[in-house]
């Protein structure tokens, strides 16, 4: 166990962990939103994210940005970020809507047992991932560098790069936006009403199908945002990137208390940081082991996750 590495690189590991954890958290929100509403674990959400990573890459290619291009200037960078965000959001949001419409809605109409949803979700996930795998010859795609790394804040041992800071700030901004939408708007109230009591919500005139679509769309848009941040920080993608990241994000959601929006944030950040500490202590190959051991231990003592209550019962 390499305690010295952990102590000497403590801040570096923490910042890296937070930046990765912020991406987990954004994806985790998609799991938690759908679970809070339908008690359904949408395993296809990981592919909703993966599709977004490719969409941004393709849009940048169309706009003339390739791996051979020089790093764009400030205006160019902003332009590419906007293009990438729109492409990823449209692709991920659209995929989420299509999955809901094609795979889940027919099952909801028939009132099938939960297990059927779960198997369907896994099936949809495999289909999308394999489809992209075949189309891309299972190659890893490199992503052109958009932002030159530079340290923007440096206090003693604590250093953070512009990309890390940007990722964390952007992720938190998206989460605050979601929180406001859910808690302050009429449509957000409709989502909470269906989550808390679907029958009574219908008696208040809430169209349940529309609420379900809106929820999948919100989860998809956040996954698109996460995909953009992933592209910028990791600078590559592959047809199977959704798999591990999806499981991590799902873990983050469970860790914070599935169905609980703020729990997803807490779970994501915590998981990102713990992973980094674990890989410093026991080596990089132990990273995922540490993450899942943490999950198991926390669930042993708090089966409902750290923040517990669901979207339904609590004021989220």
């Amino acid at each position, binding site marked *: 166990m390499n305690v010295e590495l952990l102590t000497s690189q403590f801040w570096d590991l923490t910042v890296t962990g937070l930046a990765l954890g912020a991406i987990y958290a954004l994806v985790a929100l998609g799991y938690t939103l759908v679970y809070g509403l339908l008690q359904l674990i949408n395993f296809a959400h990981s592919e909703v994210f993966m599709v977004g990573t490719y969409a941004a890459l393709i849009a940048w290619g169309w706009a003339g940005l390739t791996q051979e291009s020089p790093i764009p200037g400030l205006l160019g960078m902003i332009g590419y970020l906007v293009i990438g965000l729109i492409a990823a959001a449209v692709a991920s949001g659209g995929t989420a809507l299509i999955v809901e419409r094609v795979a889940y809605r027919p099952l909801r109409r028939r009132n099938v047992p939960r297990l059927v949803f779960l198997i369907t979700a896994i099936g949809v996930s495999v289909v999308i991932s394999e489809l992209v795998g075949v189309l891309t010859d299972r190659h890893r795609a490199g992503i052109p560098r958009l932002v030159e790394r530079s340290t923007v804040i440096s206090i003693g041992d604590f250093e953070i790069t512009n990309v890390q800071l940007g990722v964390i700030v952007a992720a938190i901004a998206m989460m605050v936006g979601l929180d406001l939408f859910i808690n302050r708007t*009429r449509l957000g*109230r*409709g989502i*909470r*009403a269906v989550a*808390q*009591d679907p*029958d*009574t*919500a*219908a*008696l*208040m*005139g*809430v*169209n*349940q199908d529309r609420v379900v679509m809106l929820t999948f769309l919100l989860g998809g848009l956040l996954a698109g945002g996460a995909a953009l941040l992933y592209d910028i920080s990791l600078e590559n993608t592959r047809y199977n990137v959704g798999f591990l990241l999806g499981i991590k994000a799902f873990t983050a959601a469970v860790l914070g208390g599935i169905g609980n929006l703020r729990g997803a944030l807490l779970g994501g950040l915590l998981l990102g940081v713990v992973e980094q500490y674990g890989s410093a202590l026991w080596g990089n190959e132990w990273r995922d082991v540490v993450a899942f051991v943490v999950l198991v231990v926390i669930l042993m003592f708090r089966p409902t996750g750290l923040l517990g209550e669901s979207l*339904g*019962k*609590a*004021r*989220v």
Partner: protein
Amino acid sequence: MLLELSDVTLRYGRIQALHGISLTVNEGEIVALIGANGAGKTTTMRAISGLRPIASGRIIFNGEDITRLRPDQRVLRGLCQAPEGRGIFPGMTVLENLEMGAYTRRDKAGIAADMKRVFELFPRLAERRNQPGGTLSGGEQQMLAVGRALMAHPKLLLLDEPSMGLAPMLIQQIFSIITEINKQGTTVLLVEQNAQQALSRAHRAYVLETGRIVKAGTGQELLHDEAVREAYLGVA
């Protein structure tokens, strides 16, 4: 005629819960459905609001056949129900619960006016407006359920057991508010186990037994009917 059910049947799986219910509600009336536990009162309400699909029969509301409409589409047409067991959203504040009642409405001024009216009818709700619905007492939740249904500004207000679980004084209060709401122009269809109160407040009433209507009449007629008195009012 505001609401008409003709020969409505409904099944839960293999069990037939309603055996051909026919009833009418006229504009401006208070109509009560009384009956014992399991007689099909709540099922009838769920059929009217659309929460349960019916097996056969027709439901006409305001001249339109609504038999196949979804619950939210029926709300848009002016039919609002305060469900049995109150159905308060526990994680929403009193204010948010009331706003849910007005979910389908866009007229801000009208909503504000109705909110004011609800707070006048139920001053307790005004005091607790920022408290989560789940922390209210049973009586307060009942007021909230009725108030929330009023926020929809319905043509027809459906109330399922508004007096359930309330102290006698509160029952009195809820029923006088129902009369008051009716005088202000809202038609009311009400399901009750408290037959005494329901019959003395209602213009007309139906008696339900095992999924069938066995008696109909004005509230006063049924109040003085020997069989009804014996079965539902506890008077020999």
